[in-house]
């Protein structure tokens, strides 16, 4: 399993004087995943990224990237990753092309023609070909972000660490960035932080939510959207005799894997939201239990899907 992880941390922590910025973080980022790292401002996302990149040193715990220790083997790690900071800063006097050339030479010393070809590809990928020979000094925030994305990919990294990659982009730019991330999934792992929950729901396959330095949720996004360990099924019933509904309700609510039932009435129809602990048993048996009374007719049966925003807000409120 460890061999298949791009990033793994064990009780990773960082404190600044009295402030605990990251608390005992246990992360497992699978290779070739798009891993969304969520949390409100000040949650510790950027600090965690800096710990992984060797820009800061952990005060407790440890971490590895592709099996390399983040403190001892930082150089070997940095040779395999690309990083886009939240606010990309470059050498203002350099042009976009010079910036990419300078970046590429940290990784490659081979034929200049190969490097130039790679630079042209990256410029095209992020839509900066026409501005390639202009000094970075005159670039807008969005253009810097695009250049940041290009330089992060110049070495075809095994892991891309992106801190708020779409924050400064317009909707089209955002869509392009998400498309690039999707394309890169096959050959690289993407670990990125964002505030834009729609984006996470759209492209991420694994998510971690951080609040006040502590991990409050972590896992495959499908699992999280399905309610995590607390799956809820929504059953819509056609009109039926009251005593039949009451009897069915009583029977189902006593099943050992049912944690609770909530009844909603809307437009003459009755909807039950049934919480279960065993998703597989519920999937196989719940509907049969309900339909065992022939007077009850079911018009809708589905596992309730949560919105990431709803999950996120709930977690923040609980915290």
């Amino acid at each position, binding site marked *: 399993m460890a061999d298949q992880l791009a990033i793994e941390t064990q009780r990773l922590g960082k404190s600044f004087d009295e402030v605990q910025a990251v608390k005992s973080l246990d992360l497992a980022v699978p290779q070739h995943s798009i891993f969304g790292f969520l949390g409100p401002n000040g949650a510790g996302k950027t600090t965690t990224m800096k710990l992984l990149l060797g820009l800061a*040193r952990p005060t407790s715990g440890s971490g590895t990237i592709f099996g390399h220790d983040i403190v001892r083997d930082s150089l070997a790690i940095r040779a395999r990753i690309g*990083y886009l900071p939240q606010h990309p800063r470059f*050498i203002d006097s350099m042009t976009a092309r010079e910036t990419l050339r300078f970046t590429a030479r940290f990784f490659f010393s081979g034929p200049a023609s190969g490097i130039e070809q790679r630079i042209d590809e990256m410029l095209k990928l992020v839509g900066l070909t026409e501005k390639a020979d202009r000094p970075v000094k005159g670039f807008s925030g969005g253009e810097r972000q695009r250049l940041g994305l290009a330089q992060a990919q110049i070495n075809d990294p095994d892991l891309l660490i992106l801190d708020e990659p779409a924050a400064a982009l317009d909707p089209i730019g955002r869509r392009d960035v998400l498309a690039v991330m999707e394309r890169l999934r096959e050959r690289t792992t993407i670990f990125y932080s964002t505030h834009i929950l729609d984006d996470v729901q759209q492209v991420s396959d694994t998510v971690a939510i951080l609040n006040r330095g502590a991990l409050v949720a972590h896992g495959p996004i499908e699992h999280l959207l399905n309610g995590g360990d607390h799956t809820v099924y929504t059953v819509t019933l056609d009109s039926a005799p009251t005593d039949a509904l009451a009897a069915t309700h009583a029977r189902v609510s006593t099943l050992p894997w049912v944690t609770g039932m909530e009844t909603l009435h809307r437009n003459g129809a009755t909807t039950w939201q049934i919480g279960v602990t065993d998703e597989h048993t519920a999937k196989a048996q719940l509907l049969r239990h309900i339909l065992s009374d022939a007077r009850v007719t079911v018009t809708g049966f589905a596992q309730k899907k949560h919105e990431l925003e709803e999950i996120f807000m709930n977690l923040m409120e609980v915290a």
Partner: protein
Amino acid sequence: MNTLQRIALWEGNTTTMWRSGFANMLRKENHAWWRTRRWWMQLGLWTLVIDGLLALILFGLVKVQTDATQNVEQFDLVTMGLQAVFQLGTTFVAAGVIILGQGLLLGERESGVAEWLLTKPVSRAAYLLAKLVASLGGVLVTMIVVPCGIAYGLLAIANGAPLSLLSYLTCVLGLSLHTLFYLTLTLLLGVLVDTRGKLLGAALGVLFGGMVLPGLLGRLALAMPWVLPNLLPAFGAGATLPVSIWLPLGMTAAFTVVFVAAAIYQFQRLEF
């Protein structure tokens, strides 16, 4: 041919350990010195300051005193010239290096460029040493070698014969080491402090505060870098020194090594 295949054709940059990224960083730092107007501005400034002052003393003073029908010994003029180059020049160049070097590291720390660069496979030692080597090259050529070369010619003209080349080169070496002392001190302070004000205050404090050291340290001061502005012109003029010139030169070199080692040590621990 796709990207991965093409990259496979590239020769991977396999340099590891402390040298990783040094060549690329050095190229970038040299570019900032020699492919911009910086080099000729510095060259013009220091040639004007050192050689202009020297020319004024050697030829301007002669004219003034000749007009006043006073007899001026050539020897005195050369001694005054050597003092201009190796006493005033040493102090001026040190101050210049401090001012020029204040942004060497702090500039990139303040702008976020250092943080960006240190996410690439460049070691922190390579990052610092590339800055030091490129700056040293630029400073040596524009602030020392060329102005001192011209000064040697001017002194030879005023003296009527070339000065002892060996003595003169020893003085140039002393000036270079004194400059390197302040360059490495500025680099170290760039790691230790986080504002230019603190850096300038500390570095200029060492430069000008050092002038009062001889009074405080007695004979021990003769082994310190701060004595060089007084000893170098005397050595160049062939005067008998109270101590071998190699003692303060050696101590200055030792200080620079300590500063560089301390800067690298502290920079390894710096967090961004």
